[in-house]
């Protein structure tokens, strides 16, 4: 980021200051004691923020200095980022492991513009990010030139459509209160990013100039909203009476407790569970780690079939309930048909009903349901479990047991089929995605691992065993490309203190948006294993082009134009090595993959980030 050239101020045209009289007894004060930004650091420390990610910028130079000197660069520790988009995505990934927001500093203008896509991802993924934006509101205090183009009347306007709350405090006391309010708003479900403007005058002037020293206000988080008890009882009645109830969870589990509660409810009912985002068919991965993938009631691999058989479907914090219960066909005429049978009762429980905005369309198509409960899914589950328990009878328990046995057999068959499918094209080069997943699982299965990004065409959900909350953190939310590496490294930063092996399955195109984040990982000694799913294309778009070309009878011969990432091929190992990583590749012989992964994991265990570039098949 370009720093404001302060020397320009002395050369700027305009009124010339009168030189001080020789007899002036008061020398100009050029230094001061504690500054406003010191108080800002006190406030941030009170919030328990452990790291603050930033690409340096002059509009927050006061706060930057306070963090590293007054705050001793500890809680928060400054993380040097090479792009504001990476800074926000790191905070995004970090939260999904740690459950606490990271702060991000950026210019209120150009920095926020860089950051905006990652903020949108966090918004769609219901993740709190705490943004502090530098700005100089008082025009008479701006140095001519860059400080003017880096100033804005209403900085947060750019992202107000996809943030929960913002403020522009005009005093330190105001900053303290708004800092607390911002954190509270961000951390009340549905979670979301918030913006606080740190005005440069407020940062840089001595605290004495602001009057009495302000006090850091007390911060008390709001308890998550539980759905209305009468409606919860109605849902329990439907579930207990149902022949084939299905629970679909997307961003349900905000904490490990959410996963435990869903397991408890499912086992009580012996109900089918689908843990997935229904924007891909067949769905393979959810927004959060909601349910163990090998649990006998997990029917995610059979989601279309169990949804079709269901007489009650309950969506738990599912962003796209319409998509979960309807099937769209993407042909010349787009058509939709119900994915449920006639008469099936449809229910949603979601905190997103408590807040909504209109411009960006992440709220998805309107779903016609029988019951809509406005409340946080995880917070509502205990009441729902108790309501179900009260309604149980020996007859129903007996029916549940039979249902559970049937579901367990179907689930086991689906898992066995997936294992068998992965063996096809086992020795192919480029390497099949199934083999990559199998080789990787073979190397990490005895570690305390955490998949912090990537889905490899859904193979990990088929071949691995996910049974701990930190083993899976979902996806970007807004499908904004460039999320993968920084979110993975942010999550790895959180995993570091627990000694976990962070695993990032990294799409090649996504990596190239802001590869400077690799340097950030090396600089801050964040251990992570990155496996590049190198299919040498923006492959999703290749498939879209094929659809268009065939639909228009022009064929697919030229679908690679504008989509391939080849000629020249990018050497991801060299890229990573240049920024301090252990790296190998490209690996194109499937028999070389296992040993390469083993060497990379050995480097990670020594505290180094490591990358293996794998020449994969497209999907």
């Amino acid at each position, binding site marked *: 980021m370009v720093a404001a050239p302060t020397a320009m101020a002395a050369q700027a045209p305009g009124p010339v200051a009168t030189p001080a009289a020789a007899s002036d007894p008061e020398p100009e004060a050029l230094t001061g004691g504690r500054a406003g930004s010191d108080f800002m650091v006190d406030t941030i420390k009170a919030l328990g923020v452990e790291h603050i990610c930033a690409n340096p910028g002059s509009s927050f130079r006061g706060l930057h200095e306070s963090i590293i000197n007054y705050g001793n660069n500890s809680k928060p520790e400054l993380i040097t980022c090479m792009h504001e988009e990476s800074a926000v995505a790191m905070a995004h990934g970090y939260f999904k492991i740690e459950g606490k927001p990271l702060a991000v500093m950026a210019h209120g203008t150009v920095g926020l513009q860089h950051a905006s896509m990652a903020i949108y991802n966090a918004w769609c993924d219901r993740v709190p990010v705490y943004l502090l934006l530098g700005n100089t509101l008082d025009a008479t205090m701006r140095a001519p030139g860059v400080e003017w183009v880096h100033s804005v009347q209403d900085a947060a306007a750019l992202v107000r459509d996809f943030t929960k709350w913002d403020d522009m405090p005009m005093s330190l006391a105001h900053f303290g209160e708004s800092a607390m309010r911002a954190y509270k708003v961000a951390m009340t479900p549905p979670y979301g990013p918030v913006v606080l403007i740190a005005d440069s005058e407020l940062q840089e002037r001595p605290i004495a100039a602001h009057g009495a020293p302000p006090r850091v206000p007390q911060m008390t988080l709001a308890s998550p909203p539980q759905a209305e008890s009468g409606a919860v009882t109605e849902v329990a009645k439907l579930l207990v009476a149902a022949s084939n109830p299905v629970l679909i969870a997307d961003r349900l589990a905000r904490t490990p407790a959410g996963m435990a509660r869903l397991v408890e409810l499912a086992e009580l009912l012996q109900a089918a569970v689908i843990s997935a985002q229904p924007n891909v068919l067949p769905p393979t991965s959810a927004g959060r780690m909601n349910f163990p993938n090998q649990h006998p009631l997990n029917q995610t691999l059979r989601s279309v079939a169990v949804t079709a058989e269901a007489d009650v479907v309950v969506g738990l914090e599912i962003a796209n309930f319409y998509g979960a219960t309807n099937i769209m066909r993407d042909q010349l005429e787009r058509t939709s048909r119900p994915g449920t049978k006639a008469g099936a009762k449809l229910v949603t429980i979601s905190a997103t009903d408590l807040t909504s905005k209109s411009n960006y369309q992440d709220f998805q198509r309107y779903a016609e349901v029988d019951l809509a409960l406005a409340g946080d899914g995880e917070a509502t589950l205990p009441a729902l479990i108790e309501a179900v328990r009260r309604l149980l009878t020996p007859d129903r328990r007996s029916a549940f047991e039979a249902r559970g046995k049937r579901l367990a057999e179907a689930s086991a068959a689906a898992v066995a089929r997936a294992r068998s499918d992965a063996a096809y094209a086992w020795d192919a080069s480029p390497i099949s995605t199934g083999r990559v997943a199998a080789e990787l699982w073979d190397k990490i299965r005895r570690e305390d691992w955490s998949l912090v990004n990537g889905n490899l065409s859904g193979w990990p959900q088929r071949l691995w065993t996910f049974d701990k909350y930190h083993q899976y953190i979902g996806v970007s939310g807004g499908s904004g490309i460039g999320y993968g590496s920084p979110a993975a490294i942010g999550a790895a930063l959180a995993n570091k203190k627990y000694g976990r092996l962070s695993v990032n399955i990294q799409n090649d195109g996504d990596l190239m948006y802001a590869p400077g984040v690799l340097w950030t990982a090396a600089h801050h000694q964040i251990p992570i294993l990155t496996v590049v799913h190198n299919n040498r294309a923006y492959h999703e778009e290749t498939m879209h082009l094929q659809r268009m070309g065939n639909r228009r009878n022009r064929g697919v*011969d030229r679908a690679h134009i504008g989509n391939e990432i080849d000629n020249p091929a990018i050497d991801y190992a060299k890229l990573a090595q240049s920024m301090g990583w252990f790296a190998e590749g490209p690996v194109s012989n499937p028999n070389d993959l296992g040993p390469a992964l083993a060497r990379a994991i050995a480097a990670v265990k020594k505290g180094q980030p490591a990358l293996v570039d794998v020449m994969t098949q497209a999907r």
Partner: protein
Amino acid sequence: MRTLLAALAVSLSTVGASAQTAPAGSVDKGRATFQKVGCAQCHGREGQGSPTTGPRLGPVSMPWAGFSRYVRAPRQQMPPYTDRILPDGDLADIYAFVQSRPKPGTPAILRP
């Protein structure tokens, strides 16, 4: 008697379908065409399939008639291939290629 006739009709129609054998196709040409016209993008270079984009095709158990009918007029999400962009001869080569894919063993690391 009616049941017997119905069963016979089904049997004859099955024979009819299997009689509609694929035109002779070239496995080698099929491999190249499978890649060139984009089948491999969703189904993998060996037709092994991918959980999120396209099912396994090789070795295919679908008769030629059903296979070719689906390619021309897919009922689900697959883009349609008319004979203008994929002539019958090329489709027969693709069929020969996917038919020739070997069944795999069970690699040690895939055993539960």
